[in-house]
């Protein structure tokens, strides 16, 4: 766990990609879930932030 946070602080690709992946997955789930409307409303911004983050952090060093 501490490796994960130190990776985040040192701008390493692995942990940041993990964060971006979680955001995208969360966004897609929010978009298609049948439970609450507000999750649907905020799904696009979540996916967009995750996707843009993924494109940027995939250029970070290993």
């Amino acid at each position, binding site marked *: 766990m501490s490796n994960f946070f130190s990776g985040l602080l040192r701008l390493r690709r692995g942990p940041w990609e993990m964060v971006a*992946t979680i955001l995208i997955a969360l966004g897609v789930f929010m978009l298609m879930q049948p439970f609450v409307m507000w999750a*649907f409303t905020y*799904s*696009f911004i979540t996916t967009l932030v995750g996707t843009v983050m*993924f*494109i940027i952090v995939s250029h970070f060093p290993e």
Partner: protein
Amino acid sequence: MTETPLSRAAQATPPGVARKIRGLSDRAIAWIFVGPTIFLLLAINIFPLIWTIRLSFTDFKANRAGREIKNVGLRNYERILTDSDIWLNMQATAHFLFWTIFFQVLIGFALAYLINKKFRGNDLWTTIIVLPMMLSPAVVGNFWKFLYQPQIGLFNYIVAFFTGKDPSSFEMLGSVDLAPWSIVIVDTWMWTPFVMLICLAGLRSIPDYIYEAAEIDRASKLRQFFTITIPMVLPFLMLAVLFRGIENFKMFDLVVQLTGGGPGSTTELTSINLKREAFEKWRTGYASAYAIILFVTVFGLASIYVKALNKVKER
């Protein structure tokens, strides 16, 4: 001097062209070859994408091209993401996506595993199984419509044979509960062979000596299946899921032929809804915002997926 394909090509080049090319660097020649493709990519993919993003912030209507275009900011996005009907369309798409991929992977892998065993008529069975994939979705949609007919449809009679129900007592395409499953069945029937072919390629790429080594180590068949077959076929399976996931996310023709999005809007997938907004209601700006939302979703998912695929390949 021996003649090589390169020297033959050099001889065939007209002197005028040869004189011009001789002065070019390798990099410049490479650009000449790649240039047309890049130009087409920019013209057909990138430019429309940028144009769509621009239109998504306007109230543009394609059927009233002369009308003044007003900038509406994020209002299109706001309206889409607070619309409960679109939320229902998304749920219908999620249902379709999840169950088609689930059944196609399960049945496709099982069929590939069976076909991979050496038996007589192996090739003939492969051809028969692959047939549905070669048909046009419009044709498949039409003939399944007949199969689903409550009075004359074969599907209802088969279900009635096994369940003892009256064939005309249920309507696959007309029932709110059954219609979402009817499109799942047809898509599974049509595209399982595709998943099977990819799995078959994966299974045939596993060298026999790995199984022989496992036999020597006295690994059981079940152990071999879970520690050799599944891990080595996994990248192929993931590729199949990626292809089918993206294809089914934009599924249109088959569902339009079968149900037209009905009854009500129970089978109205996002692509059908998007087409209605863009080309029936002519709300081009709104439909552009809708398309961008779908694009970002598919792009995000594909990014995760390619990353996962590379990880599995590295193992």
